């Protein structure tokens, strides 16, 4: 569902991503782990067709980017760092707007369903301006899955969420993966990765340095293993 091959991204003279090869299949939940500044956000944005790669090939939901980006976008749900809402409008109005953008004809039921899932039903008609950060994040998640995309690209989706919301999100993601959605989740928190992911890819200083499967993730040794790998990767790059 998501394929990246030899992806490079350069901003001015800064090389932010180099030689990234990534593969996420239908029904897989892959966590993209890495320290801040590693390039996770950039990679996700490239996959969401918001940024053009300097080099490399990208295919999402069977469509090549950037040539068939429009078609790919219909199948993608993207959650970024920013809420992307119109603060003067209500939760329902915002969701209805996005539903319209994705060509959904009668979204009222779906909107209600999602607002209920994320415990925002009581605040449906209030301006997003009045929402707390956690509520905005929940609304953003609702917007991300609104059009039932086959691919989810999530950048730190757990941020600002309380325990209950985290549980709701985890259950939602597991359910979606079971139904065949391909999910790529970027985070710097190992706990989230261990709980949810089938596989973890580590991104450090623009390179995908290591990869771990379900078995390693479940083990108690994972955290120290990860730390060692991260130090190795960063050292390797400094002496590049």
């Amino acid at each position, binding site marked *: 569902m998501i394929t990246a091959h030899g992806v490079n991204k350069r*901003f*001015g*003279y*800064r090389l932010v991503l180099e030689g990234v090869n990534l593969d996420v299949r239908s029904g897989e939940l892959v966590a993209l782990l890495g320290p801040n500044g590693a390039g996770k956000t950039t990679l996700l944005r490239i996959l969401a067709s918001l940024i053009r790669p300097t080099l490399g090939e990208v295919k999402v939901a069977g469509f090549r980017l950037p040539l068939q980006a429009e078609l790919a976008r219909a199948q993608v749900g993207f959650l970024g760092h920013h809420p992307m809402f119109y603060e003067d409008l209500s939760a329902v109005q915002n969701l209805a707007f996005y539903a319209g953008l994705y060509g959904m004809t009668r979204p009222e039921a779906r909107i209600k369903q999602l607002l209920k899932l994320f415990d925002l039903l009581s605040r449906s008609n209030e301006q997003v301006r009045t929402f707390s950060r956690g509520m905005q994040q929940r609304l953003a998640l609702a917007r991300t899955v609104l059009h039932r995309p086959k691919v989810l690209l999530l950048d730190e989706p757990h941020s600002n969420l309380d325990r209950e919301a985290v549980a709701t999100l985890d259950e939602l993601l597991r359910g979606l993966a079971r139904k065949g959605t391909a999910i790529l989740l970027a985070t710097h928190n190992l706990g989230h990765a261990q709980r949810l992911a089938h596989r973890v890819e580590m991104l450090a200083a623009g390179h995908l340095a290591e990869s771990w499967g379900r078995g390693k993730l479940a083990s108690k040794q994972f955290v120290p293993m990860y730390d060692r790998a991260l130090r190795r990767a960063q050292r390797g790059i400094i002496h*590049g």
Partner: protein
Amino acid sequence: MAPVVRPPKPRLLRLLDFTAAALLIAATWMVFFYAPSAQAEAGGETQRIFYFHVSAGWVGMAAFITAALAGLIYLIRPNTKWDVFSVAAVEIGLVYSFINIATGSIWARPVWNTWWTWDPRLVTATVMELTFLAYLLLRQSIESPERRARFGAIYALLGSLTVPLTYLSIRIWRTIHPVVIGSGDPTAKGTFDMEPQMLHTLLFSLLAFTIFGITLLWHRVRLGWLADKVEQARMKAMRS
């Protein structure tokens, strides 16, 4: 510390420097000694500025068109070299167009008894100058080098396309600008009959200004490329 190396000036450029200087000196001689005086109504001796006035005007416009074309090429094939070329052409164009406006003003004083009028060509020349000054301001306000190049290219294209429209829109009014070449109102003050020697002088001045312009352009482009290389080297040094 690495030794400082000064990249040698290409031989052709050296030759061009010399040629341009020689041509300018020759043109100046022609303007003052070869070309006959014009009638008093056309300004008498002041009319001699006409040769440089028109030459500067043509080269300025050509420079802006070159900048727009270079911008277009940049949009199709994003290579910094085209962007450097585009900026250089704009800067040259601004200088030449300014000379055009200033010399026109100097000539206008004795002929029309005013430093300025609102006739189509003057206004269009001024608008064109302002447009490309805005171009420089635009570039200055953008931090990302790629965006700067892209936006610059687009604005240069927009600017070049609106200038002829500007001219047309104002031309509906009657012009008092002396039309020496081409049709126009023969009763416009300042018109004079062009004797063959004047034509020679004009063409030669045009040649001199064009060669001089190309020389300046080359120098400026070279400066830009070298600055670019320095920036690249600096970035590399910072990373290691």
